[in-house]
């Protein structure tokens, strides 16, 4: 292995399938400590699958995934549990428990994984609520919050343990432009103040260009490019240019493959 010491995520030759369908085709991907990496790609590009593999929620067909020095494909349950305590995940819809208040949801990881005093836990919870502009919403139920608030509450829970590594799935989806911009600024601040490495999966170009140190673009289960914002903007790859200019992709149609898919349902 020639992995650099600074890499916190190292994915090598990752191949995955759902049933017979090949989702990720030989993915090589690494992220440095303190980096904000944006993963982009359309629906079905494999970006959510890659995210789920980095969270060790799926088992790959082949290849390796090393996160903060842990081989997640072969790690035992205890090792994974310890690793997950250093990872925060904010899911698209917030994914809060509907039977608990917002505050109870946010402090849950602290109550499960730490022996901190209840006073400390309460103040930590309120600090995160303040940070997410949710001060005073502690005692409300998730069903009483708007979509944007739910997303911020989910982010508050994801960062309550001050994770080294934060995964954020579609932060700006479904948010109004002002709230989306605020969330982008928050992501930048979290990295700077908390030394976090942040992986953001999104299809929002504007947001990606604003926050990313590097962007990885996936097309049909393969990495089309990994580069800085400028490198992406200057890419000669027509698929990247189409993505930036929001043009529908010009599908190459293989007649035989197409008829086969229509008649047999197989790729």
């Amino acid at each position, binding site marked *: 292995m020639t992995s650099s010491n600074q890499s916190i995520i190292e994915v090598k030759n990752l191949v995955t399938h759902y049933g017979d369908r090949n989702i990720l085709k030989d993915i090589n991907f690494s992220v440095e400590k303190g980096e904000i990496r944006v993963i982009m790609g359309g629906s079905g590009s494999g970006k959510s699958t890659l995210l789920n593999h980095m969270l060790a929620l799926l088992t790959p067909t082949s290849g390796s995934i090393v996160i903060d020095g842990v081989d997640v494909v072969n790690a035992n349950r205890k090792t994974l549990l310890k690793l997950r305590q250093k990872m925060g995940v904010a899911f698209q819809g917030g994914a809060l428990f509907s039977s608990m208040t917002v505050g109870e949801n946010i402090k849950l990881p602290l109550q499960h994984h*730490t*022996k*901190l*005093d209840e*006073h*400390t*836990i309460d*103040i*930590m919870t309120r*600090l*995160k609520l*303040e*940070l997410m502009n949710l001060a005073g919403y502690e005692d409300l139920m998730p069903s009483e919050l708007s979509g944007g608030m739910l997303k911020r509450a989910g982010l508050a829970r994801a960062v*309550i*343990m*001050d994770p080294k590594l934060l995964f954020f799935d579609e932060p700006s989806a479904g948010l109004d432009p002002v709230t989306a911009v605020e969330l982008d600024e928050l992501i930048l*601040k*979290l990295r*700077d*103040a*908390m*030394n976090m490495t942040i992986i953001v999966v999104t299809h929002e170009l504007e947001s990606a260009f604003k926050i990313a140190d590097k962007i990885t673009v996936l097309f049909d289960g393969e990495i089309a490019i990994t580069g800085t914002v400028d490198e992406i903007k200057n890419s000669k790859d027509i698929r990247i240019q189409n993505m930036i200019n929001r043009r529908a992709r010009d599908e190459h149609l293989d007649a035989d493959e197409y008829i086969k898919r229509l008649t047999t349902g197989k790729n």
Partner: protein
Amino acid sequence: MTFEQKKHLHYQLLALTGEVDLHNSPQVRKQLLDIVESGSSVIVDFSALSYIDSSGIATLVETYNLAKNKQLSLTIVGATGAPLQVMELTHLNKVFPMIDSLDEIKG
């Protein structure tokens, strides 16, 4: 993380070194609350502190509040880098007295 406590004028000075995190912040909490409970104002020296997480920040908030209720004070000296950024992120730099050096403290 290590800490060292000594007297500075009529204050107790607690110097933190290294990283304050979820695992060691309860020790810092006990130390700080004990100082204030014993009736002394406290200065926390951040100059050798490389990182403080939110459990550490929460501990400072709790200590500040207890000190305030007892007409005592909590002052931060020498915050730079990541710890200063965390204070700014949480806006506590506008709440806690923050000084650059102990010279600014007059007996």
